[in-house]
């Protein structure tokens, strides 16, 4: 596969342009990312400013999506919420990638006791109920974005470790790895030069999927009060606060919910598309 990679780049690009779910997913993801980035320099209003005299206003020219129970601009909160959502899930995936992939590669390269220990440790983390752990982390270290990142990140580690282990193990029996061994290369070098490049596409696809799961997890954590704290807006907390206002202003519950659905869908479509494009074997099966 790696041999066909380089000349295949252009063909890949062409196929990508003809792949509807990849295009849709990429477009949605880009829009969400652009909205998040834009919020750093501009939002219609300051999402942290309360104006209680203007609370619960319906959508208007000044407030496109209306105002919330404290008179804050909902659109501005959604835009800032995208930053929270993206930042938390990106860092959480980063933690998973940074720790999980090396661990998985190590387990595959060493096998034996080290490999066994790494994989057992993975099972161990997996066995703990995630939300309960997140709550206890909050109680020990205090709530906040960092905590949400760590809580989600921890559970990403075993995912990437297993993926890397599973992908690397068969590669170690392949001819080009054997050849490298005969040439006297060490385990670390082989991993870097031969194993890692050959499983990169798998890792990228998985990272996209974990990113979308991260957005869902961040929303759930901040819904139960474990994520970023006010005044920083977050979609999950907006939903929590909207719960008793459903009869008065249903849009307060609909808008953040739809923001989550659209973002997660975008990332999932992107992930599916990438899988089709990067791994033709899997694509054929679908």
């Amino acid at each position, binding site marked *: 596969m790696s041999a066909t990679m380089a000349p295949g780049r252009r063909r890949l690009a062409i196929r990508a342009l003809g792949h509807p779910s990849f295009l849709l997913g990429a477009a949605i993801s880009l829009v969400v990312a652009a909205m998040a980035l834009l919020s750093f320099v501009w939002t219609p209003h300051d999402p942290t400013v309360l104006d209680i005299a203007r609370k619960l206003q319906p959508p208007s020219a000044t407030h496109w999506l209306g105002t919330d129970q404290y008179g804050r601009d909902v659109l501005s909160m959604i835009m800032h919420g995208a930053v929270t959502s993206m930042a938390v899930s990106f860092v959480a995936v980063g933690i998973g990638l940074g720790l999980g992939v090396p661990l998985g590669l190590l387990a595959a390269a060493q096998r034996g006791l080290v490999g*066994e220990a790494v994989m*057992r440790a993975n*099972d*161990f983390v*997996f*066995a*703990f*109920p995630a*939300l*309960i752990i997140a*709550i*206890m982390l909050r*109680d*020990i270290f205090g709530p906040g974005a960092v905590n949400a990142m760590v809580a989600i990140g921890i559970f990403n580690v075993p995912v990437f470790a297993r993926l890397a282990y599973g992908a690397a193990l068969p590669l170690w029996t392949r001819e080009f790895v054997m050849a490298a061994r005969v040439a006297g290369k060490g385990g670390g070098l082989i991993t870097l030069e031969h194993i890692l490049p050959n499983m990169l596409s798998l890792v990228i696809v998985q990272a996209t999927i974990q990113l*979308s799961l991260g957005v*869902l997890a961040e*929303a*759930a954590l901040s*819904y*139960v009060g474990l994520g970023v704290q006010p005044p920083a807006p977050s979609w999950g907390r907006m*939903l929590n606060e*909207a*719960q008793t206002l*459903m*009869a008065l202003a*249903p849009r307060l*519950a609909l808008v953040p*919910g739809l923001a*989550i*659905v*659209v*973002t*997660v*869908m975008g990332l*999932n*479509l992107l992930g599916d598309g990438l899988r089709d494009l990067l791994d033709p074997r899997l694509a054929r*099966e*679908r």
Partner: protein
Amino acid sequence: MLVYLAKRLASLAATLVIASLVIFAVMEVLPGDPAEIMLGTNARPDTLAALRADFGLDRPAPERYAAWVAGFVQGDLGRSYTYSVPVGELVAQRLWVSLPLAAISLLLTVLIAVPVGALAATRRNGPADVGIMAATQVGIAVPNFWFAMLLVFVFAVSLRLLPAGGFPGWGAGLWPAGRSLILPAVALALPQASILARVMRSSLIDALGEDYVRTARAKGLSRSEVVRRHALRNALIPVLTIMGLQFSFLLAGTIIIENVFFLPGLGRLVFQAITQRDLIVVKSIVMLLVASVVIVNFLVEVAYAAVDPRLRRRA
């Protein structure tokens, strides 16, 4: 095989011991005092000390750890600080909510996913398939607690057809109890059904491509007959595997939904116990959950190893 089994058993025991140590240690560093929670802001230091002694919290940590583990092994999970009833009893009560809820939502999942997935597979790339696949994309992306909020608003607050939350207990009758599980089960089932429908679709497509299906077709069986008699049965194997995973997810992953609907299930019990610092309940339930996952994993691996001797060498 015996050597393999001994090694795996040792590793299982080590995992459980480490887990119990980790859980116990986390409970120790968790800030907050169960006696303070119980007695409130006017409590005097001597009263707090008396209650702590009553809970057995005045003894040194190693002694408490040993007592907890010894009790746990004998099936005695301790006595809840808050409710002052045995933890085992609490867990059993709560399982009568959590297990039926998981079972109903899994049933709904299967009832939706299998026909829908099969339809998509047999109409591959047709409008029905495209529509179903799009719908499942949405289903996977919907946060279940948000879906739960919408369900409550529509079916409980607006139409007043179903209760918005709470659980009257099975003593109130099958229907009054059952109807309060309908909305939570639907909320849990939607994303799971979307996942399962996709699995069903792709495994049926695979099965339809197998040789024996082609042979059967060649023998003159109609397409729908082939699907029903041959392909479906084979396609269900991966579906069953995923269902197994989903059931354990539904059991442990219902904390938020149980909180949205105020169901007195296991997840809500743990949630409440953490906030009230009913630490004995928290550590015993977390240990139970961890132990059940670890032991099931162990059994599955042993079963695989029994079938496939090559796997034994790995350990």
